[in-house]
Structure formats: C-alpha cells, structure tokens
C-alpha cells in the first residue's frame, strides 16, 4: 500500500495538472450554467406566477387586456414599486424599514401644505416633500447605526412619530392642493403616464446602485456578514445611513406621487404601503436575513401584488378577500424564503 503514495509522488506533475485543468474548465462551464440557471429560476418563479395570473385574468375578464387597464395597473403599482426598490436595498443590509407608510403621508402633506400656505411653487413643494422623506430616512439610519437600535424597533418608532407629525401639521384634515398639483400624478411624458416613467427611472437607478456601485456592493456585504464587511474596511455606518436615506427619499417620492394623483395631502394616506413594499421585495427574492435581493425581483413582486388587487377588482372579489389573499401571498413568499434558507444551511 505504501507503493500507492510513492507512485503518486513520482507521477509527472505536468500530466496531472493538464488533466486537472481540463477538469476545472469543464466544471467551470457546468457551474456557470448552474449559477445562471439558479438566478433565472429564482426570478422565474414569481414571474411565471405573474404570467399565469395574467393569462387567467385575460381569459376571465374582457377588460383586463385593454390598454386603459394595463396602463392603470402600471400606474397603480408605481408607488409600491418605487418604495419596494428602497425597501429591497434596506432588506439587503439585513435591515427593514417599517416607517414608509407614514412617510408617504407626511411627504404628501408637507408638499401640499407648503404650496397652499406658503405659496411656494408646485415643483419646489414636491422637492420639499421628497426631502422630508429623506430626513426621516436619515433619522432611521442614525437610530440604527449610532444608537444601535434594531431596525425593526427604530422604524416602528418613527412609523408612529412620523404619523403623529402628519396629523399634527394638518390637524387631521386632508389638505386640498391647487389643481396644478396633479403634474406628477396625472400627466404624460410622451405617450406614457409620468408615474410609470418615474418608476422605471427609479428601478434603473436602484439597479445601478446595487449592481454597479461600491455602495451597493457594500450593502450586500453588510447583509451577508456585518463583521466581515466592517473588518474589511467598509464604512458600515455610512453605508447604512445612506441606504436608509435612499429609502426615505423614495418613500417621500412615493408620497408626493400619491398626493399629486389625488391633488390632496392626506395625513392618513399610505397605510398599505408598508406591508406591500416589503412583500414585493421578498416575493422578488430579497431575503429578510440580508445579503440577497434584486431590483428586478422587487419590480416583479410589485407587479404580482398589483395584479392580485386589479384582478380581484375585475372579478368583483370583495376588498376583504383582497386583504386576505395579499396576506396569504406574503406569508407564502416568506415561508418559501425560510425553506430555501434552511435547505441551503443543511447542504
């Protein structure tokens, strides 16, 4: 038996390395294919669901495939999709932002109130609304990094406080904005409704940040392993604050779009956006444990959520059932994420 290892020692090194290289090349091709397939499948799951649901609705409802309805779907989903892009970034860092729904309300309220009371221009009012969202994001980021609160608690706190502020500044009454305030929600750029254009722009921007910038890479690293990222010299606090601020700005943008569409600053707007945006991200493959998630996934997730809601309307399913179905879809998506994780851990 000692012959075996002596023979191995004497074997010409060249032959074995050439063989090994050939094997490595073959394995490389296989693995690349596997990695690519896995990525496609991950997106394909929800996307196939979208297609199936779309086909079903097209058969069941004559209205579904009309251009009016299709446009309505995309306009309706735009706010959730925009917020879901930010939420995905936050979730990738293993955080969560529960404050978005009241940020939507506050941004809408502030942007209309400054137009009505202080006679600033509509454009400037909208910018201020978005910035208010960014400010809340900054607070969230600082609470998570400097004060070191768990994101869940920090943003649950700001959710309540921000909602309170929105009610305080309006006395609980909706603010009617001048009709020119509809410029963002009810206009078109070329043939396409403005909210859709904004949504696509946000998605492209979000994709760019996540896939092409150091900020995005750092976010994934922090979500995968905070300590690894920190010890590798990544300025984790800066990255986290930036991410929460981006999410705040996007929630603010969403709020302004909502206000513009109804030409009203409503302090109680946005109640559903929290859960829906998180659901869109998670359905799209973002993992609540961090380190995973994509913008395209979030978009597909948002589309799926909107299809469920639009389809329920078309099929005259009551709002109560809609809530139930949305909840069930969210639970199913998170359960699937957990199962996938566990399967990976058992590997």
């Amino acid at each position, binding site marked *: 038996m000692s012959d*075996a290892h002596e023979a191995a020692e004497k074997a010409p090194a060249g032959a074995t390395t050439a063989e090994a290289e050939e094997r490595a090349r073959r394995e490389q091709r*296989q693995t690349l294919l596997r*990695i690519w397939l896995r990525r496609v499948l991950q997106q394909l799951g929800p996307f196939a669901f979208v297609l199936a649901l779309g086909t079903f609705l097209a058969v069941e409802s004559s209205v579904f495939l009309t251009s009016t309805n299709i446009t309505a779907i995309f306009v309706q989903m735009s706010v959730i999709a925009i917020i879901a892009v930010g939420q995905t970034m936050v979730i990738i860092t293993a955080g969560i932002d529960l404050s978005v729904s009241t940020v939507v309300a506050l941004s809408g309220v502030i942007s209309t109130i400054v137009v009505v009371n202080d006679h600033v221009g509509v454009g400037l009012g909208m910018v201020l609304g978005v910035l208010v969202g960014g400010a809340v994001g900054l607070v969230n980021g600082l609470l998570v990094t400097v004060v070191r609160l768990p994101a869940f608690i920090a943003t649950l706190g700001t959710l309540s406080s921000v909602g309170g502020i929105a009610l305080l500044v309006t006395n609980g009454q909706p603010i009617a904005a001048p009709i020119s305030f509809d410029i963002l929600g009810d206009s078109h750029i070329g043939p396409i409704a403005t909210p859709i254009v904004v949504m696509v722009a946000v998605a492209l921007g979000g994709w760019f940040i996540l896939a092409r910038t150091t900020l995005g890479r750092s976010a994934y690293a922090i979500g995968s392993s905070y300590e690894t990222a920190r010890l590798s010299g990544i300025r984790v606090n800066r990255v986290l604050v930036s991410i929460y601020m981006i999410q705040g700005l996007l929630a603010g943008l969403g709020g302004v779009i909502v206000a513009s569409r109804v030409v009203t600053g409503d302090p109680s707007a946005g109640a559903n956006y929290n859960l829906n945006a998180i659901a869109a991200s998670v359905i799209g493959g973002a993992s609540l444990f961090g380190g995973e998630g994509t913008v395209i996934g979030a978009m597909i997730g948002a589309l799926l959520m909107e299809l469920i809601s639009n389809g329920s309307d078309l099929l005259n399913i009551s709002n109560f059932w809609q809530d139930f179905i949305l909840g069930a879809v969210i639970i199913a998506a998170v359960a699937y994420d957990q199962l996938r994780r566990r399967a990976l851990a058992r590997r």
Partner: protein
Amino acid sequence: MIEASATPTGQAPAVQMLSIQRHFPGVQALKGVELTVEQGEIHAILGENGAGKSTLMKILAGADRKDEGRILLDGEEVRISGPSDALGWGIATVYQETSLASHLSVAENLFIGRLPTNRAGVVQWRRLYRDAREVLKRLKLELPLRLPVSQLTIAQQQMTEIAKALSHRVRVLVLDEPTSALTETEVIELHRVLRDLRAHDVAIIYISHTIEEILSLCDRVTVLRDGENVGERKVADTSPDELIRMMVGRSLVELFPKQPATPGDELLRVEGMRVRGRDSEVSFSVRAGEILGFAGLLGAGRTALMQAIIGAIPSNSGTVYLRSKPVRIRGPHAAVAASIGYLSDDRRRSGIAELLTVGSNLTLASLPQFSRAGVLRRREERRAASEIVKTLRIVTPTLEQQVALLSGGNQQKTVLGRWLIAGVDVLILDEPTRGIDVGAKVEIYGLINRLIAAGKGIILLSSYLPEVLGMSDRVLVMRRGAIVAEFARGEATQEDIMFAATGQRAAVTTGRTGRSPHE
C-alpha cells in the same frame, strides 16, 4: 457499550468497511475505500480535506449512503438505513459542531428524547439526574448537570456530546475533529476519557488533522488521499514524517518552509496599548520583512489586542506608529487606509461574506481602488480577482461561485487574497490555518514567505506551537492581556512557550509526542 463487551478479543473486527464507493455529481468521493477497526482500539483516519474521511464516516453513521461496498459489524454484514438505524447498531458519532440544545441542562441533553417519565408523562427529575450522574460516573467525567449547555465551555459541551453518545449502548464511537476548539488541558482530559473507553472494548474512530495527537493517542491509523487508501500503519511503527508524506506527498521538513529574510526598517510600532477591560499596557513593533509570532493560551488577549490596534474594539490608551509616524485609527476602515489588514480568526463569521461571490469577497477590502466616484470598475476588479485566484491556486469553478460553496482551505485563501489585493504593508493573521488541511496550510506558509520577501510585516497569531515556532522570526508570548516573554527565532522550544503562557512549570505537560520541525 460502556460495559465490558461479551465478545472475547481475537474475534471479528468491530467494524469493517469493504470497497466503499461513493459518487457525487462530478466527483468520485470514495473509490473503493477499506477500513478495519478492531474492538478496543483507537483508530485514526488521517487525510486532507476532501480526502474522503467525512464521507466515509457519514456512510457509517447513516447520514449518507454508499453506492458500492459492504459494511460488517463484528463480522456480520449490516445495512445502515439512517442515523437512528446506525445508533441502533451501536454506532455513535460526535461531529465537529455540537448538536446540543443550548437552553437545556446537561442532564436533559444527555437524555433528550427519552427523558424518564411517570405514567402521566410527567418528567421524573430526580431519576433523570440520578441516571445522568450514573453516565458521568462511568465515564469518570465531571459536568455541571443542572447548568444549561450554553453556559459550558466548548470542551465541556464536547464532553456532554460524548457522554450523550455513550449513554446509548455504543460499540463504535466516531469522533470528527474533536479537539480543534479545545485547549491543551482539555485535550488531555478528552484523551483520558477515550483511553478509558478503549479499555472497555469500545472501538473508537478518531478523525484528526493533528499528527502529534494521533501519535500520542491512537493505536492504528488509516491514511486516505483523494478517496483512496494510501495505507494503514501501526502508530508504534510510523513517524510524523511518514504520515505527512502519505497524506500529502510532502515531508515534514517542507511543512514550514520558512525562508530566511533580513528584516528591514520598523513598519509598525504599538506603544502602551491598553484594551478596555484589561490592566496591562502592551508595546511591540514589527519590521519590514519580519514575521512576529504571538503565542498564548485561549483567552490570553491576543485577538483583543489586535482588534484594538485596528480600532475594531475600543482601547483605553495607546498609540500606533506607522513608519515612525503616529496614526490615529478610529476603526477598521482607518486601519485599512493606513495599510494595516486583519485576517480574523473566525472565518465563517467575520472572514468571508458567505452570500457573496468569490470575486466580490476578494475585492471587498479594496473597493475604493476598483471604483471611480463610487462606480465600480468591474473589468479591473475582475482582472485583479482572477489573477489572485491563479496565484493562490484558489480552487473555484468561477469568480461567480458563492464563496460558501468552497472548501475551508479555499475560503481562507480567498480571505488572504483579499488582503493581497488590498496590498497592505502590515498584515495581522489571526489563526490563519485553523481548520484547514495540511496542503492548504503549506500553501499559506509559502504565501507568507512571499509577503515577507516583498518587505511586508506579518503578525502571526497561532495556538499551534509548531506553526508559531516554525514560521516566526520573533515570538511574543501573551498571558492575561500582557506580553510575558520574547524569544528570537530558534531560541525557544514548545515547552518554553507553554511555560511562559501558563506561568507555571507544572502545567507544561503537553501530552503530545510531536517534535517541532526545527529541532
């Protein structure tokens, strides 16, 4: 089985595994491996990572299936259909990671799933503790029965795991790398328990990377390489040199290929560093082209000191000088900016970013270098990463592979590669070869030599004495947060270091017969 076995010695072997084959997609993990373990012997299985040790043991433990081959217990062929079936045959396995319920007490863990109850299903606590005491008494072990497992040391947890395995009727006990997280004294204690079991005719299969340990504990050793038997030896008839050659095809003198280097100017000086929660101030310096070794027992404060230097944990006082200029290091990012890198001792938690690709892991410490205005320059990034993959011979099918899917040695090379790409002048290596196989170790030593030749300064923290002694130009010994001794290269023996690290002569029984290579 802890009671003396009824079978007289000279009978059929306790375990025979014949022509075991196992294919995985793309790999043949076992190519007809043979293993014979006699009753009442401690049989070591030695081999690098990927040699097939774990797969072989998983098949025996019922955690994996074989494609071909036969398993005989006491001469009779058996079919092992799953882990509980294996336990039914009297085969118990203790894995590297303990599978204890950390919130339950030791006694509860020992009898988990079969707590003694009365007819109403109420747990009979008194009987539980009595039975648990009985098990520990037979093993001559002392464990705090009522304490939750989470409060125990890793060694105690491991003992609990072994006791749990043996509270079943066990005739074959498999231990997978049981000592990798234990201190010297704990290793001695474990070995005592195992010898005791051997005397009671339990067949013990012992998987280890540590040759010294095998030589001092085991009776016979089977060496595997690439899924094949290289040979079987009686421990009394072999030498570390032969075993290493069998295992990797290299000899022991080549294991620590330290190349002579002439240290240049001082690179890093630390003065009066006091880690929060410690009383001592620590000062030392590293020169260009020098390997400064840090030895010490677990908990001596080496890791904390290094993390304080890079600003990862707070310090109460202390100044860091880089090339004689004081630098203010307010966090790891500042350390990286000042060209100091720290390779963590906990690869999984703070070494790799598991979910990221190999490529992204490699460039994680040098993102500013590979970006302009915050936008990644992906082509340059990719080029640097694939170059390092080639130089370090990181075995990965592509840069896009998730790093978690690589072997431990290749993960470690990836983390090292990260600091090579970052091009830091001072590299702190905290247990750089922990838990990786000999082949990868030698490659990492070779890499350290190259860094030294390029004029970098290396700080090497290691609990493995032959490694510190074999690689370092100078060795500092720490105890309770303070530096208690300094040795120049070739000046110290393992015993000298243990003496300094423990502070007393009496504790200098290493229990290992291994010689350090430069003696």
